[in-house]
């Protein structure tokens, strides 16, 4: 078990290192000169050289990469070209908003997907099932940037129930969270349905029914316990999609998180900030995936007790 834990951690570390390298290389090897793009064509040669020196772009690539690693170890992500502040500071400022949104979106998705999936599975092929699965197909097919404006139109502009955008108070969280959670809810409800359907045919479910347990207990306590494993894995894997979706959702609702920061940084050509944002989101994703993997291992008695 401990050996498994270490090998997972080691491989997660390798992936994070690879992610950092890839982000660095992609940003540095893009055709065209970032300095040129940042300063415009009419810039003076002296200004270009100065900026190139500040960014360390005048040094050879391997040296730059080593410097990048060294700084990463010290949690030094460089300085924002736009606001001239340390990037770690900027990120720390924006992180709570994104964490809040992602958490709310995920909660939303789980609250919606579980009842829907269970309903569809226990009444397979009924109108409920068809309805729930159609809703979920629609949910997957409607992108954030379509859902968001529509929600604003209905709930903020017409009904005047919720604020249009921004981050002020709990009410302003509702629309972005629903928009972000919708696609996840759709995928999740399908998974709950499929994995519950698989489990409900097992012998021990028949036993539970035979000993006269209420259907509710059979489904939620006996069925869901086994059906939960693949669902949890999916939830972990989907967090990355959720975080990436946050980039668009935050833009739609002017939600001041990491996603909006990424877009602002792209618009102001603030490459060090773009690099840091991508790195932060991807690293979070890798860490969560590794944790999910571990939780999965721990939850599944076949893996926990089997093997050695």
């Amino acid at each position, binding site marked *: 078990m401990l050996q498994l834990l270490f090998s997972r951690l080691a491989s997660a570390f390798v992936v994070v290192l690879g992610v950092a390298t890839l982000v660095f290389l992609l940003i540095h090897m893009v055709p065209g000169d970032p300095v040129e793009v940042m300063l415009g064509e009419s810039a003076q040669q002296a200004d270009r050289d100065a900026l190139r020196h500040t960014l360390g772009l005048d040094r050879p690539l391997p040296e730059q990469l080593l410097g990048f690693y060294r700084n990463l170890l010290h949690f030094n992500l460089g300085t924002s070209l736009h606001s001239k502040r340390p990037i770690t500071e900027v990120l720390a400022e924006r992180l709570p908003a994104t964490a809040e949104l992602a958490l709310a979106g995920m909660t939303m998705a789980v609250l919606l997907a579980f009842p829907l999936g269970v309903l569809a599975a226990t009444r397979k092929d009924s109108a409920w099932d068809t309805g729930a699965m159609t809703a979920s197909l629609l949910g997957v097919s409607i992108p954030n940037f379509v859902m968001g404006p529509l929600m604003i139109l209905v709930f903020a502009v017409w009904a005047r129930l919720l604020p249009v955008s921004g981050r002020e108070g709990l009410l302003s969280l509702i629309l972005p969270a629903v928009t972000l959670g919708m696609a996840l809810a759709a995928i999740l409800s399908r998974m709950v349905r499929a994995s519950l359907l698989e489990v409900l045919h097992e012998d021990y479910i028949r036993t539970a029914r035979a000993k006269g347990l209420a259907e509710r207990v059979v489904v939620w306590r006996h069925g869901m316990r086994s059906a939960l494993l693949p669902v949890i894995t999916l939830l972990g894997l989907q967090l990355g999609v959720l975080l990436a979706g946050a980039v668009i959702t935050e833009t739609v609702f002017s939600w001041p998180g990491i996603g909006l920061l990424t877009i602002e940084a792209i618009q102001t050509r603030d490459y060090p900030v773009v690099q840091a944002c991508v790195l932060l989101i991807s690293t979070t994703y890798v860490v969560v*995936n590794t944790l999910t993997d571990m939780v999965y291992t721990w939850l599944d008695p076949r893996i926990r007790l089997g093997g050695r």
Partner: protein
Amino acid sequence: MSRILRFWLPLTVCAAWALFAVFGRVLPLLPDEVQLPHILVGPGMQAWLGFDDLGRPVWDRLVMGAQTSFLVAFFVITISVTIGTSIGTLSAWLGGWWDLLIVRLIDIFLAFPGILLAIAMAGILGPGINNVVIALSIVGWVGYARLARAQVLSIKERDHVAAAIALGTRPLRIMVRHLLPLIVAPLIIEATFGIAGIVIAEAGLSYLGLGVQPPQASWGSMIRDGARYMLVAPHMVLAPSVALMLIVLAVNLLGDRLRDHLDVRSAKS
């Protein structure tokens, strides 16, 4: 009834998308013509989908957007499937260090949420349809590489491959003639669902202002522009939204259908 809903209707939608994309240029459309008296006018006699904030006919721009999304989807799928399949097949065939290296690379690419990497790449490359294709292909090849590798690994020990090796067939020929035909079905299914993802991703990039540039039309940028006039001219945001959802829904339904149809092995065993 359900056959019509699940197959013929989506097929018609996709065919219409492709036809408008390919033949849109020869249609008498004026997607760039500004008609000042018609600014924000809703659907009516002059234009059945109304006009946008610059007085351009929304239908004509919608057709132009279909061209954008179809072109991007076509090129990204072609590039990603070709590169991904080649890398995956080679990796599984060669094995050893090469395989280890490529698996690591795939792991690292998969550690990014796909659209995030595409957003960053498109942002750094700068806007334009070519850069959208490049950005989405950089992200796209990985899935096909992983799939092709897994498939080849599962069949490369089969007797007919051993026979081909024994006969002295060259590796490239083995890969193309003896491995590829057996792994093509799952790749086609994956690619079909991939189209839906790319259509959404292209529109997403354009929504963020990282896709095609005006006056070129994309459904994503139409949605972004339309959102500003939602109160006075809801048709501006509704038309591209509905078009986008229709295509994605149709492609997904066709993908489901194709999977049921092509997945012969699971039906047999």
